[in-house]
């Protein structure tokens, strides 16, 4: 589906032609520190995405960048810029009203969630750190 999103202060706007209706969450230590809780993302192919405003990015690993609004600090996206799976934004659900109606379907690094909270859902796929890193060999040199 198409979607329009914005950061907290409204300086950054995103227009997305093809936004997934699925949310994926990650409890790895990098995502936890960055988001403050649990990082969530909704995929969209780069073609058909228009971003305007004061975006800053940080290369958090050799293959991925994280973006935020320079004015208000709102998280914007995680994106692979090298290695496998390039060409796709993982927009944070917070950009969109009601998370654009998307639904949580997968939690990765599921066994790494803090002891005090976790996402519910009996039908949500849970992938452990070991399973995820076995399936994504490029991660092993990035996530300690």
């Amino acid at each position, binding site marked *: 589906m198409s979607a329009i999103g914005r950061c907290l202060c409204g300086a950054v706007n995103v227009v997305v032609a093809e936004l997934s209706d699925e949310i994926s969450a990650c409890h790895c230590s990098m995502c936890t520190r960055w988001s403050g809780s649990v990082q969530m993302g909704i995929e969209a192919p780069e073609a058909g995405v228009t971003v305007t405003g004061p975006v800053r990015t*940080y290369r958090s690993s050799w293959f991925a960048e994280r973006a935020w609004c320079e004015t208000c600090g709102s998280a914007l996206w995680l994106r692979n810029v090298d290695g496998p799976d390039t060409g796709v934004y993982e927009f944070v*659900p917070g950009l969109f009203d009601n998370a654009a109606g998307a639904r949580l379907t997968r939690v990765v690094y599921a066994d790494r969630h803090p002891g*005090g*909270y976790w996402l519910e859902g009996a039908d949500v796929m849970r992938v452990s750190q070991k399973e995820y890193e076995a399936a994504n060999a490029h991660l092993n040199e990035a996530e300690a």
Partner: protein
Amino acid sequence: MSELKGQCLCGAVTVTATPARREISACHCGMCRRWTSGMMIAFEAAPGHGATGPVKTFASSEWAERAFCGTCGSALWYRVTAPGPHQGQTHMAAGLFEDAIGATLASEIFIDRKPTGYALAGDHPRLTEAEVMAMFAANGNADT
């Protein structure tokens, strides 16, 4: 609790804080949702907390500011700036600290503003926007 040390994703910002209580809570209000990936999970810091590094702040309302790392964009804290009994009250992002300070989620607020596509597990109080506002009014200050 004793003083704890935390850090952002890139390590440029380090924070020290003593939790006022061993308690974390989640906020789904529109501002927290847009600012973080999806929800803000935080704990109240006792007076005397500190931070070093490239901290940037954004006045997100007339009564509060939000801080983030200028290098990597990690969410750091929400602080009440308006004069009154709650001025200076600071809610630190739990993700900066090991195992989210080892606390269990004590409450969720603005639960009626939470997107329908995901939910936190657990048997804890879940307050609507109206309930939160009534509570703040009873305390003589709006400190959201």
